[in-house]
């Protein structure tokens, strides 16, 4: 957030800073307005139970949004985040379900080694990061098209998820693993606290680490960043690795919440994640976006979904509204970039 913009006399520049300020905080104004509308439509919206439900549902999606945003900041795309999440969820499930914990014998028969769940979690996160690493190497080092590379890995991962999981539901996830996904501290879900902590970490990384600065620089102008002595290839690869890691974390939260893993635990979350990032002000052209904006985008999308759900709007209409919100966000992105160009 560029709150500290100092301006001197000139009105043009004051106006520029003011507009800049408004652009960066607009999402929160919109969020409050949407919440007011939702509250009027159905007073139950503001109940503790509903708010906690929103946060619980937003947690895995939130990780995906962060994952996608980090790659978007470099000016690249990652279509494989959701497939990555589902794949490592299944691998993790197979690893941690042992005959003692398994409620059904279906899945336990496979890899039922009595490993503790922390080992399974570590493997999940490592595997997810490795997938990100491979994406990153292909995109940054081999200069393959990011869209096509991650689309191909998405398709592969979907196939691998079905292959490994044999299309079945894996039950019997250990309680310890499920703690963060399900527990509540008072009325607040632990997953929500975890997610906020994750946002705080990313915010810190973007604002005050060398890597954060390099992400913005590479996304804004890769050639210039390279000329300024930034190892552009490494930055993009690392962004993909972080993206993969966060997809793994999303799998952790999702499996924890659902208590099961299968190829069908998630669908359509990829597009919601991209949409929430763009709604939150992350530019598809790279180099623009803040952690606070991303959080705003995530909450706005979640609130809109929840409010329509409460109002019992049929799912088909929900789809249409979602699409409309995304279109508006992309329009805002295009205008923002146009605005930047005009001041040249």
């Amino acid at each position, binding site marked *: 957030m560029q709150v500290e913009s100092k301006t001197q006399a000139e009105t043009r520049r004051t106006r520029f*800073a003011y507009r800049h300020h408004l652009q960066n905080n607009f999402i929160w104004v919109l969020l409050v307005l949407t919440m007011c509308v939702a509250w009027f439509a159905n007073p139950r919206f503001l109940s503790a139970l509903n708010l906690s439900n929103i946060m619980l549902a937003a947690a895995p999606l939130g990780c995906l949004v962060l994952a996608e945003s980090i790659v978007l900041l470099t000016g690249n795309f990652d279509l494989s985040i959701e497939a990555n999440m589902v794949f490592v969820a299944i691998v993790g499930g197979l690893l941690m379900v042992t005959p003692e914990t398994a409620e059904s014998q279906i899945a336990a028969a496979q890899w039922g080694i009595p490993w503790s769940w922390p080992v399974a979690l570590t493997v999940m996160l490592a595997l997810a990061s490795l997938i990100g690493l491979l994406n990153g190497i292909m995109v940054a080092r081999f200069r393959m098209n990011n869209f096509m590379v991650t689309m191909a890995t998405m398709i592969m991962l979907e196939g691998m998820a079905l292959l490994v999981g044999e299309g079945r539901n894996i039950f019997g996830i250990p309680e310890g693993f499920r703690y963060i996904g399900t527990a509540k501290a008072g009325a607040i879900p632990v997953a929500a606290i975890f997610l906020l902590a994750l946002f705080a970490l990313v915010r810190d990384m973007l604002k005050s680490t060398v890597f954060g600065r390099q992400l913005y620089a590479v996304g804004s102008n890769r050639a210039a960043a390279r000329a300024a002595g930034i190892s552009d290839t490494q930055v993009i690869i690392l962004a993909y690795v972080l993206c993969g890691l966060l997809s793994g974390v999303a799998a952790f939260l999702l499996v924890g919440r659902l208590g099961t893993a299968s190829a069908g635990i998630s669908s359509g979350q990829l597009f919601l994640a991209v949409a929430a990032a763009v709604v939150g002000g992350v530019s598809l052209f790279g180099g*623009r976006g803040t952690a606070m904006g991303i959080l705003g985008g995530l909450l706005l999308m979640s609130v809109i979904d929840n409010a329509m759900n409460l109002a019992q709007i049929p799912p088909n209409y929900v789809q249409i509204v979602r699409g409309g919100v995304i279109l508006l966000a992309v329009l805002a992105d295009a205008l923002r970039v146009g605005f930047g160009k005009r001041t040249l």
Partner: protein
Amino acid sequence: MQTIHTKDETLINARAISKSFGHNEVLKGVDFDVQPGEVHALLGENGAGKTTLLRILSGRYQPTAGCIEINGEEFSCLTPVLAQSLGIEIVPQLVELVDDLPIADNIFLGRWPTRAFWINHDEIINRSEKVLSQVGVELDPQTLVRDLTYVQKQMVEIARINQFEPRVIILDEPTAALSVREIEILFEMVNRLRQRGIGFVFVTHYLNEAARMSDRLTILRDGIVATSGPVEKFSIQDMVRHMVGDVTDFCSDHSGLSDEVVLALQNTSTDLIHDFNLQLRAGEIVGLAAPKGEGVSEYFRALCRLSGKLNSGEVIIKGNPVRLRSPAHAQRCGLGYLSEDRHQWGLIPGRSVRENTSIGTLQKLVKRVSRHLDLPGEKKVVAELIEKFQVTTPGMEADIQILSGGNQQKALVARLFNARLAVYILDDPTFGVDVKSKAQVHRLIAEEASQGAGIILHSSDLDELLQMCDRILLIQQGRIAHEFKRGEVSLARLEELHAS
């Protein structure tokens, strides 16, 4: 065919033009006129109001006050369409033609003669030949615009404009991208057209060219006419004085040449540069003069591994042979590069002046334990750099894109010099930079050399090389054709060699 204007008739007469944007008064009562057959140079630093005046004359801006008299008629403001119908045409700084269409189609762009529904190609080509020959251009109208040199594109654009029988043609920085030879071609064409009574407005940063080409000049400074009159009355120094206001030190002395060789290039080659050898000593500024298209910029980018790589040869930095892998690696070895194209290889748009300035040296700002950036420390460093490099900005948080070209360039020079390297390669560091900023950049380069850095300076401005450099290497056909020590060569001689 052509309108011949009588000599006493003023083509365009703008009187007491003022223009404000909000509280910002850009033009304050400017008078400007163009007589038939004359070339009127419009000079001034960036931000002096040249562009605003051009936009008012071509109808893109409406003046806040004043009037424009064209052809005896008075207008309080123009629109682009009205200006064109009154015979005022502008050739923009970057000529935009459709690269994938032939010259003929570009000349009739959007007005192709048709036969029934089909474009009549024979007629386009016949008429294009006429249009081209009217301005004395010998080009095949069927050539793709993509295959033309920049000056040829400009000529096609002027030929295209000429068919509308213009009274005044405004040339906005026409020579910025041209070699000395090409500038001659352009000037010849302008001379041919002015015989027919067309008046030219010639906007340029290059004072030599203004002095050579124009009959009259008007110098704007801070939105007022600083001076105006026949060009013979002004020396280059006079022009600079009027543009800048007070006399700045145009000369840049540096001392402290040592014997230590900081950079040695041995038989280095790219596709266009062959067997380039150089021994650069600490504290030395070596100038490279090369016509455009000689591939010097590409050579530098290959040397620093910004794009491509050297075909052969050895690079020795401070006595150590190195195989550079990336610009980052080059900087660690002590070699820094500033590109001639700040938009492509320099600026990080959408980010603040602070981030743009500190991005090259972030590692110095990392706190030891937490590995985080020292943000207050960064602000301090950037504030010092802004002060030292005299970057004019509304604040360090402003987007780098809102700065003027000169200030953007100073910020980039600050970014590079703050890395404190042994060798700097500066590729046309004052290209498109106003006179005052230019003098400041010169001073900063000289200072850096005085402190022991070795500097390679490539410039399209030969005057700049003569002032700044201890040695000048003239490159022709990819090889060093001549080498001069400081004071061994005159500007005239260098220009002659450069053009041959």
